[in-house]
Structures are given as C-alpha cells and as structure tokens.
C-alpha cells in the first residue's frame, strides 16, 4: 500500500480561491470567444459571457473532498462534480463557434492546464511525479501544438502549409516518442516504476 496521502493540498487550495476564480474567468472569456467578437456585441453574447463568467468562477474551485453525496439531488451532485462539469461545459462552449487557430490552441492549453492543475492539487506530489513526468508534459505540449497545426492546415494560406505540416509532423513524433518513453519506464524490469510497485506490497 502506498504511503502517500492527498490531504495536504486542501488547505492550500482554500487560500487560492481568487486564483481558481481567475482561471475560471479566463476559460469563460476564451470559451465565449470574447477576443474575436465583433463590436458592439449582441445582448445575447453579453448575457452568455456574464453567465459563463459567474458559473465558471464557481465551477473552477477544486473539489478535494471524497466524492460522496448525502442525497442524489442535482445541486449536491453539481457541487461534488463541479470540476467535471467545468471541463464539459468549456468544451461545449468552445464547440458552439469557430475560433481562429490561435484561439483553438489557447483553448486547448487552458483545458490542459486546468486538468494538470487539478492533478497537482488532488494527487500527492510523489505520485504526481510518477504519473505526469516531464517527458509527458513535453508530449502534451507537442500534442497540442501538432493538433492545432493540423486543424489549421485546411484553412491556411498555401505558403504556410509546408511549415504547418512540418510542425504537426514534428509534434506528432515528439508526442509519440514521449509517450513511448513514459510507458517503457513502467514496463521495464528493474525500472523505478516496477520497483516502486514491488515495494508497495504490504504483508498479507
């Protein structure tokens, strides 16, 4: 059995409420596409923006308790699964309108950042180093860059297409290599990953 616990992050997250609210605001702003609005905006757009900001500020606060609800009422479920709701709502909000390519990249970075930050506050540090090693972070960055370049390819200018294709190919290669290295470390006999698993065995 592992010796790690995920209790120490709870005090820290309570102190960082403004940070999480700010992150939620950033996701709401990018989700509704405020940077590429046509001005003056519609009343509906402003209403959606305000609603998204208010909702995302609340949903971005990390839930670090046990996923247990006293009753199956919707508001209680929403409190416990608010971070899951946030990532789903964000993806749906982004899907409702077509952003520029750079904005699609920023959206992906924001979502990846939120998922990684949630892992940071909810998983013990030693386990997190094993789950998300630097190689995997590089792979994630490459994946975002590569996929953004790929999706930008059909709509791009002809002169930029070779560059975008090269970026996408390099990113895909980097992501593949990083993933392969990450999985190989866990599979290799005598590696730190398997040693750690053996040491975790408790007396039966």
């Amino acid at each position, binding site marked *: 059995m592992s010796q790690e616990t995920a209790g120490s992050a709870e005090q820290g997250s309570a102190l960082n409420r403004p940070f999480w609210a700010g992150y939620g605001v950033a996701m709401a702003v990018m989700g509704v596409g405020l940077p590429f609005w046509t001005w003056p905006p519609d009343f509906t757009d402003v209403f959606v923006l305000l609603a998204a900001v208010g909702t995302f500020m609340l949903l971005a606060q990390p839930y670090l308790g046990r996923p247990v609800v006293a009753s199956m009422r919707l508001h209680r479920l929403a409190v416990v699964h608010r971070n899951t709701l946030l990532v789903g709502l964000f993806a749906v909000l*982004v899907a409702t309108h077509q952003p520029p390519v750079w904005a699609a990249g920023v959206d992906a970075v924001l979502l990846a950042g939120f998922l990684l930050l949630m892992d940071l506050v909810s998983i013990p540090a030693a386990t997190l180093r094993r789950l998300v090693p630097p190689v995997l972070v590089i792979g994630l960055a490459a994946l975002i860059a590569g996929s953004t370049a790929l999706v930008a390819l059909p709509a791009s200018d002809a002169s930029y297409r070779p560059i975008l294709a090269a970026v996408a190919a390099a990113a895909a290669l980097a992501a593949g290599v990083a993933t392969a290295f*990450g999985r190989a470390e866990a599979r290799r006999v005598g590696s730190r990953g398997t040693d750690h698993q053996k040491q975790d065995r408790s007396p039966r």
Partner: protein
Amino acid sequence: MAPPVPPISWRPSQRAMRLLTAAVCALVPAIVFGAWWCVPLAAVPLLLLTAHGGSHPARIRAEADVPDRRCFEGETVTATIRLAADAAAGWTRQEYLPPRLRDFHEFDPTATPSGVRLESLELTGAVITVRLLVPRWGRWSLGAVAVDVYDTAGLRVAALQADLGEVEAFPVPAPDDTVLVPQRFPDRFGEHSARTPGEGVEFIAVRPYVFGDRQRRINWPATTRRRELQVNTFEAERAAEAVVVIDALSDLPQPPATEDLRPRSTLDIAVRGAAGLAQAYLKAHDRIGVVTLSGRVQWLTPGSGNAHLYRIAQTVMDLRKDFTYETGGLNRLPTRVLPRGALIYVFSPLLDPGVVEAIRDLADRGHPLVVIDVLAHEPHPTTAGKPDHLDMLALRLWRLDRQAVRFVLGELGVPVVNWDGVAPLDLALAPLLQMPVAGRAR
C-alpha cells in the same frame, strides 16, 4: 483463521471522469458536427487517459484496533487502522466520519454534536493513526474512518470503511473529602464514631464496674473519688452506608465555567458530584450504592472497595449513550436497593415532578436525606432580543415554582443545598456537618 476478505468494487475516480468528460465533450462535436477546432481539446485528456495503464489490488483489508476502550473524560483515545493489500495501489485518501447524532450545542454552537472530537488523523506507512478527544463522560460511538484507495494511474478508486466501535469515558470525580454520617449506623465495623457504647476510642462517660468489664478500662481517679470501681465507656466505631440517587429525567445544558472547559449540563454536574462522593465514602471504608432515575430505574447495591468505584461508573454509563435517552414512568424505588437507615444523597435539578414524589417516598421510609440542587443558572429567553414582559412573567412563575418545590422539601425535613459543579462539593455540604443527618421518625 481470519475470514477471507471479499473483493472490493472499483469505480471510476473523479480524475477519470474529468478526463473522460473533456474528451467526449470535445470529440462528439468534432466528429458529429465537424467542429475541427475541438480536436486539440480532446487530445490532452485522451493522452492523459491512455498514458498509464493503472493496476490495483484485488483485495484490500482495513483492520481497526482501539487498545483502550475505557478512559476518563478529557482524555484522548488512539485508534490504529492497518491496511493490507495483495498488490500495489496508487495512493490513499482517508477521512474521519463522526457518528451521526442529534444536536447538543445550545451554549457552544461550534461544538460537534458527537461526544468525541477528532484531534489528528495521520497515515504512516500502511497504518492510519486516529486520535480522538473524549471531552465528556458517557458511552460514545467513535465513528469510522473512510479510506479511498486509488489505483496506480489514479483512474479507479475503491472505498473502504473501518468502524472504530465504542468507548466508555468515566466521569472525573469532583473533589470532595466531606462524608456526612447518619444519626443511626448499621451494625458494621468502620471508622465513624456512633453514639452508642462500643469498642472505639472516643470517650463517652464513666459507669460503675460490672462483672466482665476489662480491667484496663478502670478509671482509677473516678474510682478513688466514688470509692467503688468505675470504668470508661467508649463510642462504637461503625461504617456508614450511603446511596446516591442521580436524577437523569431532565438534563439542562449549563454555561461552561471559566476555569474548567469541560462541557457542562445538570447531568454532568450530578454524575461528577456522585463520583466524588463515592470516592470519599470508599476512601473512608464505607459502603455506597447508586440509583439512577431515568426512563428506567437502575441501581447498584452498596458496596466497598476500590473496584466498587468502577462498578458505580459502569452503572452510570447507561445514562448517556450517544445522547440518546429513554422515556418512561418513574416507579416506586425497590426496597432492597436502599438499606435500612442508609443516608441518601439526591443529585437533581428538581425540575421533574416525578423526582419530588420519589424524594417524598424516600423521606416517608425514614431515610436521612440530602438533596443537592445542581441547577445553577436560571433559564433565559431563547430569543436573542431583550426580554419582554412575558419573558419576565415566565421567569417569575418559574422562580415561584422552584420556591414551592423547596418549601415542600423543607416541610418534609429534607435539607436542600445548591452546588454548581465548580466550587468544591465540601463547601456545599459544610453546613450539614454540624450534626448527623436525621431521618423522619417512622
């Protein structure tokens, strides 16, 4: 041989649900509606989901052990929970689950409704150590510790629960050295001087010698004066018998004392005072018993010795089990519970009419009685505002009712003393030390 541990069920963790939701919510518009800009959104959660193939144990066992299930109020109970698994797991998250109880915090809104309070919860290796403070006497459920075990990828979770069982917290006896004695003692050797001739050391008088008197008891100066043999007579030494009656029919919270931070109620004060009296009597090699008046009448016949104090505490435990209570009629006290001539202390807030009837019954049986009123504070309006004339009228009626109860007890010849549980019990009983407590003639 330990019973086989059943396999536990694993379910998706919140991390898995987060990643899966993000991936699905991005992929569905991309595939169905051709929203190509959602593909980068789905790439990261898909990679995080597939980067690690998590493994988890098939069987996990959590064994709780509480070495000391008896303690005194105000002490800390330590429980250990040992986790054992047949394979590696990722990490654990543990949480203390207090027992679900009714609210009991009129004077302290921040206090937990449970009788125990969590002090610390630590994980060292595969052992979880829980320290729980038991602030007040009673029989308390300790609650449980929930342990969430995650797999090595953090994508699946299994929940275990280790029940910690119960603990018995004995009341800390109130400091008391005063032992009241009845006018008539039972025929048992002891340390108190009875007002009857006997073999003690307290001198009473001289009398003429009769055949069979010991020669060493001849009082030679008196013999010289009266010109016939005179002998000294001494008081007999007898053991007292006492019975403490605890009224648990009403239990009112009292404001906490400034120097004593333990929770206080009329029942707390009564039980601590009863324990103090029992300790004082047992120290003087007397016999003491206990009767508890709650939904049902329980008693322990008088006894002596150090072990008897724990027997008394054990009897009192049944008065408070997780703040639950029993209702019911107060029947007549059984005769064999109260030895003839035993001195009876009644700890009561004098709020229930049934107790006044019980005191009248005891006085009619001829027992010497002392009533210790443990209600130290008058009730106040529950509304936060300034008391109005109706509140004042209600308070006046309440005072008149209390005066009427005391008048009835005075007419019965029963002394009533006040004790708030803060001052020593000796001070409250001091006025009764001037002479032995007498019962009514039958």
